């Protein structure tokens, strides 16, 4: 049944869609759009805004109907641009605006407001309404993250349905009647669900705004960069909005196979570290017990010297927040040095049934894939304090919250640290510090919990002379005798096929905006599996058709 196709005509074009497809979806799939407020592909149909009107002929003459609740049926003729359909939409636009404050100049939604868009597209040039508007509460705190303006609200109930159907907390509802209706938090309380900022994303107007982002910038001045959230191993796709070389907001980007339209609040607000005061802008080496700025050449030389001296006595803690490209290079460095004492630091994150995985390392799968784990009989992180090792490489990682390990590091002869901000570990233990960058400042890929490789892209430039980690690791590796330093993260990925056949032919571009799943059954996704067996599977090209997430 599910695969049964239905043939119908939309605006004179014959189309075939699976049975059960709504007309609004069929039109969207044709690359066109029926205006809509209350309909959202991820939510149940409410059918209350009444703007998605089309004309339909099912053999009994034409009639206007809402397209969001209309199943495509065989022989149906749909007219999205007929005069009655257009008139009905114009009527709804007029009605939606009679009690709307029309405060666009000071509204955060301006520029991405469906009221503005549809008014522009087919609204009338004036209103016949000349009465005082209905007044309702403004700037109401629904929570510390979400502000509500009842006068701007068009009561589409997307937010109500999201909380109930997706976040699993039926905490919003409508109170009062008719044009006095307003959204309210249940029992006069606050929103508590961990995904509440998604209501701001899906609010088609300026009724719900983010406390964090409001009044920061007009949205059309934001540079929008597609990337991946680095807070957990789900790898929610994001659109990062930046201006003045600062991240101003992060919103989910649609990816049906990963996060659909959603992401958690904690993840989307986890960009404050990019602007932290303690960002590292220059390499440092310890002289007379104090860390002092040094040139890259001097610092890299000191680092290589220390690593070579340590040899198989080096303890290496490689961050699972680094990209695949960086992990590959780090693995190469450790192989050159010849140590087996390798590990990554586990990181927890809340876990739920929606998106959050509980694993706070965005690239734990990549770390396992590239063998970031102790060799046989070698020391891992848990054995560090008792290991007696005399040198360490903290690659994008710190041990600030582990006092015993910090003490062990402090007693060592040589400690190399890389990272993007100054840590207690660096201050107390580092012999050499090489400044790397955050995930907002570099190219590369993460492999998520389901084995999907996804591309991160830079949206900011790094402070001072800090270098993307792939670059500084590549330079270290080159100085250790590993050939020429790579010129890009993409070059690193392209070179991996030689040693990892399952990555043959991959490039950052080929991952596409939606990422690419590695063949199932391979070690990248096997929980707790530390050794890598090269498989024969090759990545299949072309299975992920690249489509920019249609803005819902």
């Amino acid at each position: 049944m599910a695969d049964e196709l239905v043939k119908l005509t939309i605006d004179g074009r014959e189309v075939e869609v699976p049975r059960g497809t709504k007309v609004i979806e069929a039109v969207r799939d044709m690359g066109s759009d029926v205006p809509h407020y209350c309909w959202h592909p991820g939510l149940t149909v409410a059918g209350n805004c009444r703007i998605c009107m089309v004309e339909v002929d099912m053999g009994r003459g034409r009639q206007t109907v809402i397209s969001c609740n209309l199943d495509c049926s065989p022989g149906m003729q749909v007219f999205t641009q007929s005069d009655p359909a257009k008139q009905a939409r114009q009527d709804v636009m007029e009605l939606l605006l009679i009690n709307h404050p029309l405060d666009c100049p000071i509204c955060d939604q301006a520029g991405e407001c469906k009221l503005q868009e549809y008014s522009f597209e087919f609204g009338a040039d004036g209103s016949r309404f000349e009465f005082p508007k209905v007044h309702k509460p403004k700037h109401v705190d629904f929570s510390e993250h979400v502000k509500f303006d009842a006068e701007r609200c068009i009561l589409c109930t997307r937010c109500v349905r999201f909380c109930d159907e997706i976040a699993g907390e039926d905490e919003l509802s409508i109170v009062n009647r008719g044009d006095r209706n307003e959204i309210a938090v249940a029992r006069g309380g606050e929103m508590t669900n961990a995904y509440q900022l998604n209501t701001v994303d899906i609010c088609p107007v300026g009724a719900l705004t983010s406390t964090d982002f409001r009044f920061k910038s007009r949205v059309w001045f934001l540079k929008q960069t597609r990337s991946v959230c680095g807070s957990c191993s789900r790898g929610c796709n994001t659109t990062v909005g930046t201006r003045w070389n600062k991240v101003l907001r992060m919103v989910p980007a649609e990816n049906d196979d990963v996060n659909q339209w959603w992401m958690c609040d904690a993840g989307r607000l986890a960009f404050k570290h990019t602007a932290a005061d303690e960002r590292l802008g220059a390499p440092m080496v310890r002289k007379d017990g104090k860390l002092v700025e040094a040139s890259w050449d001097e610092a890299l030389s000191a680092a290589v010297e220390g690593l070579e001296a340590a040899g198989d006595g080096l303890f290496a803690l490689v961050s699972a927040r680094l990209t695949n490209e960086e992990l590959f290079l780090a693995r190469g460095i450790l192989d050159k040095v010849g140590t087996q004492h390798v590990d990554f630091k586990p990181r927890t994150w809340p876990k739920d049934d929606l998106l959050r995985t509980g694993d706070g390392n965005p690239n734990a799968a990549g770390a396992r894939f590239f063998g970031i784990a102790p060799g046989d009989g070698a020391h891992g992180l848990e054995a560090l304090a008792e290991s007696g090792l005399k040198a360490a490489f903290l690659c994008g990682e710190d041990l600030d919250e582990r006092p015993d390990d910090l003490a062990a590091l402090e007693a060592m002869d040589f400690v190399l640290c890389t990272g993007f901000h100054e840590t207690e570990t660096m201050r107390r233990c580092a012999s050499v510090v090489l400044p790397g960058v955050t995930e907002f400042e570099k190219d590369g890929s993460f492999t998520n919990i389901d084995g999907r490789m996804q591309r991160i892209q830079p949206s900011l430039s790094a402070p001072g002379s800090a270098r993307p980690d792939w670059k500084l690791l590549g330079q270290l590796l080159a100085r250790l005798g590993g050939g020429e330093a790579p010129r890009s993260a993409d070059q690193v990925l392209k070179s991996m096929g030689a040693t990892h056949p399952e990555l043959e032919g991959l490039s950052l571009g080929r991952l596409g905006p939606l990422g690419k799943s590695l063949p199932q059954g391979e070690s990248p996704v096997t929980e707790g599996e530390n050794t890598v067996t090269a498989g024969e599977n090759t990545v299949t090209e072309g299975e992920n058709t690249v489509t920019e997430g249609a803005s819902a």
Partner: protein
Amino acid sequence: MGLRDRLLQHAPPIGSSQSYDDYVASGGYQGLKKALGMEPDAVTQMVLEAGVRGRGGAGFPAGRKWSFVPKGTGKPVYLACNADESEPGCFKDRQIMERVPHLLIEGCVAACHAIGAQIAYIYVRGEYPQSIAALEAALVEAREKGTVGSDVMGSGWACDVWVHKGAGAYICGEETGLLSSLEGGRGYPRIKPPFPAVEGLWRSPTIINNVETLANVPLIVRDGVEAFKSVGNDDTTGTRLVGISGHVENPCDVEIDPATTTIRDLIETHAGGVWKGRKLKAVIPGGSSVPVMPADAIDVPFTYGAVRDAGSLAGAAGVIVMDETTCMVDALLNLMQFYHHESCGQCTPCREGTGWLEKLVTRIWKGEGRPSDIDLLDSVADTIGGAQNGKTICFLADSAVMPTKSFLKHFRGDFVAAVENGGSPVWKAQEARRAKVSA
């Protein structure tokens, strides 16, 4: 009146309620007994052949509605009796609930048998405490006597009936709004499809029938289709209960033969004529939401078809009479205030439009109207009305639109006068009183 008075034939006077014993003595529960001995589909077939149309206003044939219940879904089937009677001008269902409650209970149980339900909910308007008390008392008797409960009339079949008290919203009389309310939610009408017969109460097949519709079922089954159809005509079979109110000498409920009783008969014969010896100005025949009729249009029988052909609707049979002194701007304002207040606010056109209509009528009423306001009022009504054109989920917006358009059509002069002469006479009288008080 030459009519076998069927629904209320044995009803005690207003203010008292027929007991179980009296009901049985007058032939009560024989219809149910007979229905229990029949195949459910055969009962549905009888109701279908009797042609009884929904008495809640829409006039949809009850038997056809019942036949929409899908078979073999594995889900329970529910019967919801719409006893919300929320339409202004309507007070006929309470006659059945308060005076012959067992007739409704018998109808509910018989209907449950026909549609395969074992639970019926009677959703009673919260402002009807007498109806609720009478039904509750009758249900105690019925359970005791076994006409409701785990073994209905010894058949081994169980069927329960529950009374649910509404909380005071017009929209809960809309059939799917009623279901939402019954489930404990806001009384929001639901988008269709799915239709309630397929997915209604708790997403299970549900039939919603008006009180009077269900009260006819025992009589159809007991006395047969022909006896039922001996009253009325092919368009409107059986009797109709009609409430007559407004400017009449004797506001009342009557049970009539719709084929032989005209709206004029209802007013002049049954309600004692227009009060105070005045002349008739206008009649709203089917409850406040239907189009108004001018005085010269009322010589039509009270069938669905005849009233429709005369430009209005028999609806839920609430005949509202207005005498020659009535200012139609004032009357329309009353209705616009009501529909604005009662819009659930779900659909944009109704939520925003009913308030706009009220504001426009208020402006005209207060003497602040402009000549162009009259056409604007008509145009705004067109903008929001037309559930059949997909404008709204339910017909509430149309309930405001139909009076508006018909008032303007038949009584435009009142509106022009209000614009030209500084407002409605009612407003001017109020202003004069206020001036006197403050002087």
